């Protein structure tokens, strides 16, 4: 796709908006539709677009294998860690009310962190799936 300058320019223009939209869906999930899962997929789709237009080599430079793999596990750890944190603060596992003095704030905080964990894992999973798939045709 190196010769398609229109595609390249439009992609460059669109990328920030896709990522900002993903973050909006991520952190606005308590108020509107959306949440970690959708945000992760939107984030990954922005990345897929980048890979399609600018090639696998550039994409791997942005998201090397160690980064996506670390992020993959990190998301689950954030989720599970929130549960343990709420136990440390004296609540039950994944009982976010214990995270702050006010139960409402605790719930807000807990949901936000947990959704972040979901988002990180889903985005990393989708990105690494796509990159692994896209890297296949290299051997033949």
């Amino acid at each position, binding site marked *: 796709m190196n010769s398609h300058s229109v595609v390249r320019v439009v992609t460059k223009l669109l990328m920030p908006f896709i990522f900002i939209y993903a973050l909006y*869906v991520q952190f606005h*999930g*308590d*108020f*509107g*539709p*959306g*949440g970690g*899962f*959708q945000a992760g*997929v*939107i984030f*990954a*789709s922005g990345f*897929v677009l980048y890979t399609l237009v600018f090639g696998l080599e550039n994409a791997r430079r942005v998201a090397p294998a160690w980064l996506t*793999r670390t992020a*993959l*596990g990190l*998301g*689950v750890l954030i*989720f*599970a860690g929130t*549960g343990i944190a709420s136990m440390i603060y004296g609540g039950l596992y*994944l009982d*976010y009310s214990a995270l702050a003095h006010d*139960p*409402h*704030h605790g*719930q*807000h905080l*807990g*949901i936000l962190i*947990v*959704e972040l*964990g*979901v988002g990180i*894992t*889903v985005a*990393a*999973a*989708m990105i*690494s*799936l*796509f990159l*692994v*798939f*896209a*890297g*296949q*045709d*290299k*051997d*033949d």
Partner: protein
Amino acid sequence: MFMLATALAIVRLRNLFASAMLTGIYSLLAASLFVVMDAVDVAFTEAAVGAGISMVLFLGTLALVKGKDRASRPKDVLPLIVAIATGAVLLYGTLDMPSYGDPNAPIHHHVADLYLDEGGSETGVPNIVTVVLASYRGYDTLGETTVVFTAAIAVMLLLGRARRRPRKNGKKIDAIDPEAPV
């Protein structure tokens, strides 16, 4: 209904590229159906995952395999009979179900009342769907995240190894590595 036509077309078509495209269209139609049913969060997911990512993965797979399905014309009618019979039994089963949107249906009165009445005041978060997913059903969502994690690991184990090995010695070898731990 558009969805029915799309599904039939997917089955009929032998060109896998067109089938993949139609699958995306089917997901998009399903997403609009969910919007009509006021399930915006589900529609969001369906549009992003079904119409977006999974279609890209389909196309990625198609790049690796041949784009045409083998024209197979099975002659036996037994699978057709089994399918029709199962469908008829399932349809018969739905006759006993409460009609769609019936506020008195049992499923709306198990814990849903509590979620809807208390969800907002207990957590202070306006989107009940998020509250149920992340707070009341936190264990389920943790499990789902783990499933996504495990699936990604599995795919990387299956495909990632086959890609890396041939690069080292420059010639193509089998995907099955005898030294790999099972």
